């Protein structure tokens, strides 16, 4: 790979971005370690100190923002993201989505394993004996509608961006963020008024694992949308090139589809 048509050594001759040493991967790993340690300790009743977990979450988000700031600088102000680099970033994100897909696949496997041949310990029925499952036509249906709508507003925002319509793009993205936020709030209330917990038989475990995994990703997705809103507001995303925006859209639609499966399996079929 080389620069064929510029006989000069003013510019680098390859299209790749050779990144400089960055502290963020290491800091992020430390942050994640603390977060998981505290989460596990809390779930096993070793500690009930929510404060440490809160600090961990704030640290993680802060490191994420600093890392994103560096990437934004490299993309917008230094112009390091050539089409080859964008291609690589996009491919990396697609691979990440594949790992997510496998994660969901594993969790669904656990669900079907327990649901299709319920063991004798849970009364050989699904949902297990004396579990009162949630009403599928209640809040979960509302959540489904909101996520599907957010997919539509996301597309609206994307098309407006490609047509260089700044206001419509920002408005669509704002609506998507709002719907994502509302989804998280509704999930919170759903969990709050739920009659069973993570520790109530295998049903509670797989249910909260699946919906919780999805909910966590919606939170991350909403954060990504906020970042994109910031970039859109600051004229950083162009009508032709918006790799970060594209990958966020991919994640959001992935979550849409994953939720449809979660809804059908966990709320509608499995009760």
């Amino acid at each position, binding site marked *: 790979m080389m620069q064929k048509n510029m006989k000069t*050594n003013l510019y680098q*001759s390859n*299209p790749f971005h050779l990144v400089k040493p960055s502290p963020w991967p290491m800091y992020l790993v430390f942050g994640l370690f603390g977060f998981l340690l505290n989460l596990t300790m809390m779930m096993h009743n070793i500690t009930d100190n929510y404060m440490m977990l809160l600090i961990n979450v704030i640290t993680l988000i802060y490191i994420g923002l600093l890392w994103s700031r560096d990437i934004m600088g490299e993309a917008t102000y230094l112009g390091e993201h050539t089409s080859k680099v964008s291609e690589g970033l996009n491919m990396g994100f697609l691979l990440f989505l594949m790992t997510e897909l496998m994660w969901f696949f594993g969790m669904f496997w656990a669900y079907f394993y327990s649901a299709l041949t319920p063991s004798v310990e849970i009364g050989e029925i699904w949902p297990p004996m004396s579990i009162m499952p949630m009403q599928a036509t209640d809040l979960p249906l509302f959540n489904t509608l909101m996520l599907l709508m957010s997919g539509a507003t996301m597309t609206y925002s994307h098309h407006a961006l490609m047509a*260089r319509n700044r206001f419509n793009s920002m408005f669509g993205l704002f609506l998507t963020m709002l719907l994502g936020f509302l989804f998280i709030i509704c999930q919170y209330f759903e969990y709050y008024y739920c009659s069973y917990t993570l520790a109530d038989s295998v049903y509670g475990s797989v249910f909260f694992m699946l919906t919780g995994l999805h909910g966590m990703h919606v939170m991350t997705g909403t954060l990504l949308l906020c970042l994109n809103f910031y970039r859109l507001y600051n*004229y950083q995303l*162009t009508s032709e090139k918006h790799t970060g925006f594209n990958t966020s859209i991919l994640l959001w639609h992935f979550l849409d589809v994953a939720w449809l499966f979660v809804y059908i399996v966990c709320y509608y079929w499995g009760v």
Partner: protein
Amino acid sequence: MLARTALRTASTRPVRLFSTSRLVFSEKKNDTPAEFGVSHSLSEATSPNKLFGPGTKDPKAQPSSFEIATGLDRLELLAKMEGIELFDTQPLVQDRKGTPDDPVLIDSLDPIRYIGCTGFPKGSQEVNWIRLERGKLSRDWESGCCYMLNYIGPEGNASHH
């Protein structure tokens, strides 16, 4: 006392918030150094300092890449607008078998380039990696294909490697 002094020092320095866009919105708008410039075409992009866009005219429209792209990204875009593929990312074409008298010429920006030979016709053998050097004939030991480096990089750069 120390804290107050530190705070005062910090407050007089330019604040670098979430990204440098704060500086763009600050009042110091016209202090761009003279060597920085805008390039509308490849001929205007004479140095890395000239790889900036003219900026967006309509604040109500989202900018296009031509308006705000910078750096190598801009250079690639400007080249593309003139129909030039700046970075040659395609595999080498092997349309004939190079002989010692008439080797296949391989363009290179560097005095040294590695190529992978799969024989002729292509794919007739496993890849053999060959190191080409400027002014030296290289021959694949399996298929006998001959290659020669065609240096197209800037002059005066040849002794670096």
